């Protein structure tokens, strides 16, 4: 193309670079202004260098992108000229056929060049200029506005709401302390939990803001958990046992809290009654399971191998975990594994005894071999010890959960998912001292409330040794009721305990069954 065309192209390049520079500057200023204003309103201070980096970076990127988009090429320049000066595609034709030969194309090209030479100086496109001007004004306005806006005091804006301990909140905490004192916790744990709760009342009395209240609550719950929950809780131990192949024992430990499904301690007038009831249920179920466990060793074949496996599993469960020596369950398992090793060694040393192993009978008795007798007594010891330890550990866990949920409910905080309301009413009552609504038979709270023949959609599961697995609580409600009625008729309960069980039955079924 001729010199005139190249001049127009050069002018377009200059315009494109200028417009890109302007866009870069506007975007840079806008970015700095937006960031500065935002941070000022949030009360955040950053080094000025960062603003320079943000502005410079955005400006550079915008400039590059704008130039990429706006940069002219011959075809664009030709099209713009034809459009601007109404040349009927003369310049575009000359550009497109610039390298063609022939009389006509040469004539056309010459005509186009003459036209280009005669074109006047290009006028400024006011339409786009106005848009650029507006963009520039906005960018500068935002930048200067951000520069002169003072920093906002964030602390003053986000005030901590005040807090004052009310009498009824203090009374409820004292009520909780009374329950803990009446509970079956060991003396050391009981005194520690009570002390933590007393300290909590004092801290709340001194707290003036909501944040202080929440901080005191978190600290108290953490302290109570550290007192009540052993450092090696039964769920953790259960996972180790599971890894060692002791599935049954692991399940019992994992679900230890659910072997006796009681959802609230407040259902009992006497917390100690809960502990005793728990013991009965745990012993019964664990005993049934233990029969199966015992059966593993009734067979005389490979007795030594099995003993070694059991001992190894128990020992590894203990060895794999970092338990302090004071952990009762660890002590039991450790002792158990040592006894098993002892029996194994004895069997290895007396091959006659191994050969004399009787027919496989699960029931221990006078016909059992000495090794089996020893195992049987060992099972008895283990049973008692595990029951006690499980009970203790589960009880401490239940107490910890109860204290935590009670306090959270008291101060309107969400309770852990899956955990029932300490009230267990499901009626949405905020007052923990309010007795449960027994007339609300349609309540679908945990525990399967309602008549014995109707289940109210409880999805909670309990371990059923008869089935060998976990079943929905509502499905064994009748069986559970029968067990409690048997307990009532047994005459082994004190008056206080009978009243507690009767109340529990009433809450579950709305009345004592007629056949009683």
């Amino acid at each position, binding site marked *: 193309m001729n010199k005139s065309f190249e001049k127009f192209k050069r002018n377009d390049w200059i315009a494109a670079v200028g417009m890109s520079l302007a866009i870069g500057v506007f975007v840079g200023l806008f970015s700095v202004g937006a960031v500065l204003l935002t941070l000022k309103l949030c009360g955040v201070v950053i080094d000025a260098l960062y603003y320079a980096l943000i502005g410079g970076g955005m400006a550079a990127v915008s400039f590059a992108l704008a130039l990429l988009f706006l940069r002219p090429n011959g075809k664009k320049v030709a099209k713009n000229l034809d459009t601007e000066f109404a040349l009927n*595609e003369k310049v575009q*034709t000359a550009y497109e056929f610039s390298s063609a030969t022939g009389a*006509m194309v040469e004539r056309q090209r010459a005509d186009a060049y003459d036209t280009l030479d005669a074109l006047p100086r290009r006028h400024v496109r006011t339409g786009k200029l106005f848009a650029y001007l507006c963009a520039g004004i906005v960018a500068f306005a935002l930048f200067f506005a951000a520069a002169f806006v003072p920093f906002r005091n964030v602390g003053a804006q986000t005030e901590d709401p005040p807090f004052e301990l009310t009498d009824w909140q203090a009374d409820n905490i004292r009520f909780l302390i009374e329950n803990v004192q009446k509970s079956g916790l060991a003396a050391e744990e009981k005194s520690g939990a009570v002390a933590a709760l007393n300290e909590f009342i004092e801290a709340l009395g001194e707290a003036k803001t909501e944040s202080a209240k929440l901080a005191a609550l978190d600290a108290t719950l953490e302290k109570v958990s550290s007192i009540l929950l052993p450092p090696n809780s039964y769920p953790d131990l259960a996972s180790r046992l599971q890894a060692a192949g002791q599935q049954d024992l692991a399940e019992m430990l994992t679900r230890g809290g659910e072997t006796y499904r009681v959802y609230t301690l407040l259902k009992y007038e006497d917390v100690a009654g809960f502990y005793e009831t728990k013991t009965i249920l745990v012993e019964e179920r664990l005993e049934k399971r233990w029969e199966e466990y015992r059966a593993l060793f009734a067979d005389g074949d490979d007795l030594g191998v099995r003993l070694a496996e059991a001992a190894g599993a128990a020992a590894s469960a203990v060895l794999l975990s970092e338990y302090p020596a004071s952990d009762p369950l660890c002590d039991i398992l450790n002792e158990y594994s040592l006894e098993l090793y002892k029996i194994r060694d004895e069997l290895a040393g007396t091959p006659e005894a191994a050969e004399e192993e009787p027919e496989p009978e699960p029931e221990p008795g006078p016909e059992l071999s000495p090794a089996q007798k020893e195992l049987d007594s060992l099972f008895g010891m283990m049973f008692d010890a595990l029951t006690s330890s499980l009970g203790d550990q589960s009880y401490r866990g239940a107490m910890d959960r109860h204290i935590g949920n009670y306090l959270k409910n008291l101060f309107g905080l969400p309770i852990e998912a899956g955990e029932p309301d300490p009230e267990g009413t499901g009626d949405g009552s905020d007052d923990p001292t309010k007795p449960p609504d027994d007339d609300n038979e349609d309540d679908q709270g945990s525990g399967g409330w309602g008549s014995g023949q109707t289940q109210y959609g409880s999805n909670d599961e309990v371990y059923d040794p008869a089935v060998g697995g976990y079943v929905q609580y509502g499905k064994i409600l009748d069986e559970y009721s029968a067990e409690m009625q048997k307990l009532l008729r047994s005459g082994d309960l004190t008056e206080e305990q009978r009243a507690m069980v009767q109340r529990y039955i009433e809450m579950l079924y709305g009345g004592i069954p007629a056949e009683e």
Partner: protein
Amino acid sequence: MKNRKKTKNGELAPEEEELYTPSPEVNADGPAEYEFPEIEAPAMSAYDTARIDKFSASIKRIKDELAKDFVGQQDVVDNVLCAIIAGGNVLLEGVPGVGKTRLVRSLGKALRLPFSRIQFTPDLMPSDVTGTNIIEQDASGRMSMSFQRGPIFSNLILADEINRATPKTQAAMLEVMQEHKVTVAKKTYALEEPFFVLATENPIEQDGTYPLPEAQMDRFMFKLLVNFPSVDDLIGIVNMTQITMDETATAVVDGPTILEMRELAKTVPVIDAVVKFAADIVANSHPELDSSPANTKKYIKYGASPRAAQALITCAKVRALMNGHYNVSYQDVKALACPVLRHRVKINYTAISEKLTVDDIIKQLVNETR
């Protein structure tokens, strides 16, 4: 036709004012045994700037000559000239007496091309158009077959009221238009270039007519509407014809020049964007395509064929050159959209019920394409 003297043989002498004298054997009934000389188009390399300049001057001279015999209707004249140079045929629609025959006669005079008029009637046979073999007996009594050429053997043909002829005759005529050849009894006769047919349709009298089918309509490059002249033009017509009813145009170019102009027009450059524009117009006339505009889908029943795109570009080149431009522009294509498309696009009943003409729809289509 002026009175002509008779020769010694008793045959009519050639017209004194006949400008084109192919051979002494030409008589009023048309040429007999005559082989038209082949006129080859000059090689492109022989053209120079002078010939390019000559194009516009020739066009201007032709228009000036036509203006002597034809008043007004400047767009019709321009488009007819454009079609002749582009090598296409034209379909004229207009009421009787608007000057269709006169236009073609004047053109024949100005371009120095033989002219023949064929009045189509329902009893016209194909052989009446193309010619037929007849048995002749020479002086010795020997019988032989001789081909008598029909009126189609001319350069400019006025096919008057083509829609009155039977489909068979129409087909014969249209085949000649397309092929520029006549085949009779297995012998092919080439027609002389430039060959141009200007067909007419009477839009008033539709009784006893055989409308041209769409496929045949597609063979016409343009369809032009000859409207009733304005009062001023009518005054001009009356004043002119009071002097003489004969055409007074004189020859300014000849057949070879027209062919030169045709070849020259082909060399006019057109950018891809304009070609795409023409193609888009034709494509957008098809309602079955997803990309066509909403108005196309609403008002058009059938779209234009690819011949329409070819016609648009070919004629746009000629038009550009006629206007003194050396390249094709969007404006050239837009100006030719209606003549090229109005007989190729079929509108549906919705358009008719909304009193929209095909020209209205084509203009909408062009506006929506760019």
